[in-house]
Each structure stands twice: as structure tokens, then as C-alpha cells.
């Protein structure tokens, strides 16, 4: 038991294998549900590719799990602004995701100008800027500019929401 738990420690990558397995099983399950009468004009049918893809995912899931348990690991992606020496900073990601979700909930009801402002302002705050007023003004300006830019320039009417009639 202890050997199992030490082997599992730091193996969060097994979650990836689990996800691959789940998606693979889902694809196969969905393919099994399809009922296809044999037809001369389409001998392959809609089932063939899902079965191949599902099997590929299941095989990858198993092989990845084996690879990870044997000590293999994927290299995290590097980049200009990325500092891999500290662990993932969830205090940045969660508020960022929160701002994103707030936008999804608000966009149809309150309109793009409000939800976009919330999205940008919230994201900037989550990423560490503390110039509340300046950030708010930039966010509002961006949201207004894109709203009118899309409407006048592209003919795409983003939702006006609560501000309908004012904008």
C-alpha cells in the first residue's frame, strides 16, 4: 500500500491518462449506439472512424499510464513569460476563470459592454495589476470600442443588454 501511494505521488499526469481513457470510452460508447443499415453506397458507414479514434485514445491512455508509472513525464511548455521554477499559481488562475465565467453569465443579459468590462477588469486584477480606476477606464473603453467597431465596421450586433437604447 505504501509503495503504491509513493508511486502515485507526483503522478498527476495519470489524470491525463484517465481523461484520455474517458474520452475514448465515450467515443466508443457513442459509436455503439449508432444503428446503421448496410448500404452499398457507403460501405464504411459512420461507425468506422469513431471506433478507430476511440481505440486510439484507449491505447494511448493505457500506454501513457504505463509510461508515467515507469517514471516518464511530459515536459511542461516553456515561453518568454513563463517561469517554471514556481508551482502553478492557483490564486491567479481561479479569479481569472471567475472573470471568464462572469462574462459568460452576463453577456446575454447585461450586454457585451458591461460583461466585457467585467472580463477585462477582472482579468487584469487577477493577473496582478492594482490600478483600479485606470484599469476600469481601459476596460470600459475597450468594450465600447469593440461594440461600436463591430456594429459599424462589420455589421455584427453584439448584445446591448441592459444598456439597450442608451448605446
Amino acid at each position, binding site marked *: 500500500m505504501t509503495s503504491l501511494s509513493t508511486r502515485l505521488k507526483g503522478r498527476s499526469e495519470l489524470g491525463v491518462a484517465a481523461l484520455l481513457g474517458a474520452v475514448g470510452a465515450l467515443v466508443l460508447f457513442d459509436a455503439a449506439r449508432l444503428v446503421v443499415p448496410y448500404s452499398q453506397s457507403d460501405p464504411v458507414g*459512420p461507425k468506422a472512424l469513431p471506433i478507430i479514434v476511440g481505440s486510439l485514445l484507449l491505447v494511448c491512455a493505457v500506454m501513457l499510464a504505463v509510461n508515467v508509472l515507469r517514471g516518464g513525464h511530459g515536459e511542461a511548455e516553456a515561453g518568454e*513569460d513563463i517561469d517554471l521554477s514556481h508551482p502553478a499559481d492557483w490564486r491567479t488562475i481561479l479569479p481569472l476563470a471567475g472573470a471568464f465565467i462572469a462574462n459568460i453569465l452576463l453577456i446575454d443579459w447585461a450586454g457585451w459592454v458591461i460583461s466585457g468590462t467585467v472580463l477585462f477588469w477582472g482579468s487584469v486584477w487577477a493577473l496582478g495589476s492594482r490600478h483600479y480606476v485606470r484599469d476600469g477606464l481601459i476596460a470600459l473603453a475597450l468594450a465600447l470600442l469593440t461594440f461600436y467597431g463591430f456594429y459599424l465596421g462589420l455589421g455584427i450586433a453584439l448584445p446591448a443588454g441592459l444598456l439597450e437604447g442608451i448605446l
Partner: protein
Amino acid sequence: MDILSSLMDGFATALTPMNLLYALIGVLLGTAVGVLPGIGPAMTVALLLPVAMVLEPTSAFIMFAGIYYGGMYGGSTTSILLNTPGESSSVITAIEGNRMAKAGKAAQALATAAIGSFVAGTIGTALLVVFTPIVVEFAVSLGSPSYFAIMVLALLAVTAVLGASRLRGFASLGLGLAIGLVGIDSVSGQRRLTFGQPLLADGLDIVVIAVAIFAVGEALWVAAHLRRTPLQIIPVGRPWMGKQDWKRSWKPWLRGTAFGFPFGALPAGGAEIPTFLSYVTEKRLSKHPEEFGKGAIEGVAGPEAANNAAAAGTLTPMLALGLPTNATAAVMLAAFTQFGIQPGPLLFENEGPLVWALIASLFIGNTLLLLVNLPLAPVWAKLLRLPRPYLYAGILFFATLGAYSVNLQAFDLVILLVVGALGFMMRRFGLPVLPLILGLILGPRIEKQLRQTLQLSAGDVSGLWSEPIAVVVYIIVALVLAWPLLFKAWRRMRPRTAVAVGGGTVAAGPAAGGPTAERPTAERTTAVSPGQAAAADGKTTDANTADATPANHGQEKS
């Protein structure tokens, strides 16, 4: 087909004031996103797709062409001034160019990169003009079995050859193919993976998926590991080169072009291998080998030319066969489909004026890049100082806007977040992004070819290898797949090299015993060595040097 007159017609279309303006916008936008960390040309094209739908297709593609070449140019500016390469093909530039910049020769490094890019891009585009019609002539004679085989080759080659881990590449490919399955099957009318959701019946929009994987995934990933200490940016004036620099640069430019174009045109050549080959060649041929690792101008000129020539080469299979081999080409292919244009060998016949205008605009874009960017280099350097909270908040803002404006439904934003989380996970655990995007875009087309093939052969499996080209392609596929086994056999025969090779690959040790072995290929292992050499030579072995090793496993910046 008279190529020259078609090309001249293309120039006539591309040189109208409006189209020139779009080319200029594309070039500036492309350079800006190439310079900025976190965003790249593929994502920019994806974000602009909904906006571009109101344009003429020709104008849209002229703009995309500018973004494509501009992004390549901007990437080299960043790696010279920052020493942290944004894409794997700029790794070499980062090593040598940054050493030059630190030695006070930033202007010359930028100049040789810019002029070399122009030379390579122009020659590469000329080669594209010569070779693409030949490939098309050959390609129109091919039937479904050959196409099916070629597409399988492209998918497997990109998955198996590029990137650090074949296993993780295939996992990514599987995910992409699965996403591509969602929606109503066009032949049988059956709903696949829709779970009774009417919103999923039309399938997942490629724009939404591409923006989610590239933009949202990247922004979340960077946010999790944001560098809190400001990067050291080397100040720069206007790029220029002395007589001696010209003398030392022009041969590497030409040799780099010769390496880059063929690799770019191959299904899985990529830009990484030719830049490295060019670097090694220049080091061997140089009269100043002692300068390498300390800022030799040849080491910037050659790889930069190779990088840009590869970018031009990539467009050959894209235009002639409808086969994308890098992320930007894949998104451009998706754009063709959105405009209702069928990609493939008939593209030249059906959409001749558009394709030739696109090719002409590549020449124009290249020239614009040189004219505009030499004086603008200090401005781009300033762009690097943009506060990161604004940059990444802006990426999320425009990603949301772009994805929402496709269908104006909030449901797409939910997809954007979920797939963005997937993109985050892939970056965390080293799953390459490119196979997913190619699987998503090529998956439906592969299925169509497969069904046509077996329809023609009335369900007989032997129909798959009924054409000689198909047989040849399957043999290449087998070789690509068997490559690690062959490599292992070769290593067993030469145990001494095995030690040297094994030492360079981090994950090879524990994994090499089973079929799940990490791919310890010669290219990858050796690609690390210039970085190590630079680290050993350099007197200022700061923390940044470690970043210059190619840690982003074959992914280009999206």
C-alpha cells in the same frame, strides 16, 4: 498553364490600393503578435476569421499572408532582444542572436535576421511558384485512395516526427479527431457525440476550438507561471550592417534557404530541423568558429533564412494538396473552408485568381516587412515592455470576442472555457498542440476520402492500395512508424554513441525499455548541444541561458 502571366495577374490584384492596405495591416499585425509573447500568427488568423468573413476572400487571404510572414519576423526580434525563444524554430536565433545583442551588436543581429528573412522569403516564394504547379499537375491525377494515404501520412508524420514524445503526440491527435467527430455525419445523417444537444449538431466551430486551444489555453498557462521579475530587454536603435557583416551574411542566407524550403515542403519537415542543420553547417564552414556561442553573425543569418524558407515551403503542400503542416497553415485551410472554397489540387483551377493574388502578396508582404520593419525595430522593442496583466487580459478579451462573434451564442463561450482548460492541461503535461489542430481539421476530410475509396471498390478493402502512389505512401508511413525501432537497433550496434545520445534526453532512461519509449532521435538530442555549448562558453551564465534550450518540444508559437 502560363505561370508567369497568372502571377502577373496576381500582382495586378494584390497591388490595388485596398489590397495593399490589407497587406500592410497584415504585416504590421503579424509582426506585433510575433513580437508579443503568448500570441502568434495561428491564433491571430483564427481570431480574425469572423472579422475577415465580411471581406472579399482575396483581401482576407492577402492579410493572412502578411500575418504569416510577419509573425515569423517578429519572433526573431523577440529572441534576439530577450533570449527566450517564443517558438522552437527561433531557438538557435535566441542563442547566437542574443549573444550578439549582449555584445552590443543588436542592430547588426536584427539587420541580418531581417534581410536574411527577406532573401529567404523571396527565394522561397519563387520556389513555391515553380514547384506548386508541378505538384498540382501530379496531384490532379490522384484518386481517393492516394489522397487518403497522403493525409494519413501527414497526420502520422506530424504526430510522430515533431515533438518530444510520440505517445503524447498520438494522445493529442486522438483528442483532435474526437472533437472533429462531433456533429451530424454528412453521409448518413446520424448524430455523433452530440448527447442530444441541438447546439452540438452542427459540430464544434473550428474558430472556437482553435481560439480556445491557442489563446485561452496559453493565457491560462502563462497566468499560472507568470514571471514576476521583469525580463531584461536589450535596447536597440535602427538596425544596420557594415560591409564586413554583409560579407559574412550572404552565403549563410542562401545556404539557410536551401535547407529550409525542402524541409518546409515535406509533410513533417517543420522549421526546427533545418535551422539546426544550417547552424551546424555555418559553424563548420565559418572562418571564425571561435565566435560561435559568443555571437557569430553567421549563426543568426543562416538559421533565420532557413526558418523563413521553411515557412514558404509549408505553403506548397497547403496550396497544392490542401495539406497543412503547421498551425498557421491549418487555420488558413480552415479559412478556405469557411469561405466555401474547396482546398485541394483543384484550387488552382477553380480559384486561380485568388491563389495567384495570395502568392503575389507573399512577395509584396516580404518587401513590406523589410521596408517597414527596419525603421520600426525600436518600436517593436518597446512593445516588449507592455505590462503583462494588460497583455494577457487583452488576449482573453479578444479571444472571447472572436469566439462569441461567430454565432453570437454564450454556449460557445462555455466550449471556449472547457477546451481552453484542455489546452492548459496539454501545456502542463507536454502534449503537443499541433496534432490536435491537424486532427480536428483533417479528420473529417480523411473520413470522406476513406468512404469514397471503399465506395469505389464496393466495400473491398484492397481498394485502399489500388493506386501505386498509395502503396508508396504506405511504405513511407511504415518507415515513419518503425523509425524508433530502427533507431534502437542502430544504437545497440554502436554502444558508444548510445551513451552520448542517451545522456542528452531526459526521459529516455526509464522509458526506453518498453514500446512507450520517448523519442530519442538524433535531431532532438543534438539540438540541445548548442544551448549547452552556449551555457558553457558564456561568462554570464545567468538563469536566462537555461531558457534557451528547446524545452517547448517542437511546438511553434501559435
